[in-house]
């Protein structure tokens, strides 16, 4: 076809749709950042202390965003394959508790970190086992493990205490904060750069490796994938393990940030992940999606949560978050509507 034909009517419309689909999320992020930057301009000066875009505020936001950035990337791959893991929040809490416990009892950082990571792998493997081997519906299986992991975390913390923190005679070493708070580059800590590393790695995995292709194939049409020689059990089990590992990284980061192991610290993480993934345009049934866009979606959530804290009273937060989720759902519907719906 000639160039003039390609620039007319339905082709232009389709090209426009694709462009919108690829770029909308950056526009949304920009609008939100702009919105929060303008909202209190009467009281605080631009980039000055207390302003949304002040260096302190930005650094704080990015520091607290490390957990959601890590987990939502892995979560995206799982959702591309058409599976879900509702236990990530509890897995994060459990690994945070174990990490804090080990640090307090004298383990060096490397050991505690490795142990937390190993635990995350185990938790993810259990999820994978329940979903792929025992063939329990993912929602129900991961709700069961949510309960198990949360319960385990609560039981490890001695009753009467709310978290694993320093005891008289056994204080929490001060260096526990270093991973999530100490400045390494541009005022940001190791935890943030590890999160960036994870995102980069998973973007490459999703776009350029077999794992990403297989995930999309399994999500698009599991039977066809199986018949093509892809073993869903093995690959999706692996994805659950990766999600568990990332939840552990997030747990260690959260424990480091708060200097304690809170068994409830991960509550709601799964909802945040779902919102991030939906904003990023991953279709519910799987088959397509983008780790990069999910990361932008995660940033949007962090901006919204941090920004709203300064603008609305605390008791509006839940309603605001619910609205964001429903809004993300509606947005996602608009974006993935042109995908053929399989029965």
């Amino acid at each position, binding site marked *: 076809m000639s160039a003039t034909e390609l620039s007319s009517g339905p082709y232009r419309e389709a090209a426009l749709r694709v462009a919108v689909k690829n770029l909308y999320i950056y526009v949304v992020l920009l609008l939100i950042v702009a919105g929060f930057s303008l909202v209190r301009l009467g009281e605080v000066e631009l980039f000055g202390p207390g302003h949304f875009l002040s260096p302190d505020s930005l650094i704080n936001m990015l520091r607290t965003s490390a957990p959601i950035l890590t987990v939502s990337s892995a979560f995206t791959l799982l959702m591309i394959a058409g599976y879900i893991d509702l236990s990530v929040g509890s897995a994060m809490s459990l690994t945070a508790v174990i990490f804090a416990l080990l640090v307090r009892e004298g383990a060096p950082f490397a050991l505690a970190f490795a142990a937390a990571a190993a635990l995350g792998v185990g938790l993810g493997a259990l999820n994978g086992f329940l979903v792929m081997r025992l063939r329990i519906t993912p*929602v129900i299986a991961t709700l069961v493990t949510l309960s198990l992991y949360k319960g385990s975390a609560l039981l490890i913390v001695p009753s009467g205490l709310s978290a694993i923190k320093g005891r008289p005679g056994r204080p929490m070493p001060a260096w526990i904060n270093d991973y999530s708070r100490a400045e390494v580059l541009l005022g940001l800590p190791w935890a943030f750069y590890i999160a960036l590393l994870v995102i980069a790695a998973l973007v490459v995995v999703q776009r350029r490796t077999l794992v990403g292709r297989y995930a999309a194939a399994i999500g698009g049409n599991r039977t066809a994938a199986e018949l093509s020689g892809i073993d869903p059990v093995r690959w999706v089990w692996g994805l659950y393990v990766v999600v568990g590992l990332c939840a552990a990284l997030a747990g260690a980061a959260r424990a480091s940030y708060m200097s304690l192991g809170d068994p409830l610290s991960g509550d709601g993480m799964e909802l945040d992940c779902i919102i991030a993934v939906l904003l990023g345009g991953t279709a519910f049934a799987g088959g397509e999606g983008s780790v990069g866009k999910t990361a932008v979606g995660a940033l949007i959530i962090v901006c919204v949560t941090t920004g709203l804290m300064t603008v609305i009273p605390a008791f509006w937060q839940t309603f605001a978050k619910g609205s964001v989720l429903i809004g993300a759902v509606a947005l996602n519907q608009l974006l993935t509507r042109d995908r053929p719906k399989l029965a």
Partner: protein
Amino acid sequence: MTSEAMTARAEMGPSGAFAAKLSNESFLSLFMVGVLLALFAVACVFVPNFYLPRNVINLLTNYWYVIILGIGVTFLLVTGHFDMSVGGNVALTGVVCAWACQAAGTSPNELANGLGLPYGAALALALLCAAGVGAVNAFFIVRLKVPSIIVTLGTMMLSRGLAQVITRGAQRNTSLPDVFGVLGNTFLPGTSLKVAVLIMVLLVAAAFALERSTVAGRITYLIGANAEAARLSGIKVNRHLTALYLLSGLLAGITGILLASEFKAGVSSRASGYEFDALVIALLGGVSISGGFGSVLGMFVGAIILSVVTSAATGLLLSPDWQFTLKGVVTFLAILAQRFALDRRRA
């Protein structure tokens, strides 16, 4: 069951014929009753005074609110959908009911002022809100075909969030009319049971009749077994699912009103986790998310099982933190046991 299997069983003689007549659902319900009795026996051994009639009545009635919620959740689960918004819905209706009843403009305290409506109007408004939540669910799930788990988690946050906004994060319990506390605190004559228990029993009976004997009930199972086939058979699947979500919302509304009345307060943190409990008792009762399988009676048995387990845990002086682990383990074992029993039966 295939016709060959049925013939084979009928040939086994009278007991075989009876066993063949028992549907898979009834079999599973009986199986779970057996599990319940076994657990009860074990609990009686380890927990002092567990077998006393007073305790048994407690076991049967203290989860009445989760059972009412479980009715809606069971019907939806049979069709293959979730409803995790019931907990938030309960909180919202309780808060709206309280807020509507509070005297208007009498106090400088924001939380003591309400709409000043008569009790009847307050009830209607609360039920309207409950149905509204169900309608939002239905719109996204049925119309936009969004997975129910995601939508209902969203509406859970929306409804609880709205409750938190109305109560400013706390509760509304002042300047309420006396009639507000009547429904939740009236005892059935001659017993120590509250009216709410009677309402629960009536609703479960009605639900059972619905699922067994009415066209609407059978349609629910058909949709669960194969939604596309149901649609091609002329069943208005979308309309039916919408009705089920509205029903679930209304049941949550009734529960919210009763709970708010019992505690004479609209609390925004009420019913936290109830949606998970409702799902657990449905699963314990043998309701399957795939295949249009399960019964409201099974859900009821599942509720008693959960009651026995949690009461025994309390009786053994385990801390409340054990609840999560116990619920997870019990649900997991129940799913496995049910699958094992059904596979053995089909063999």
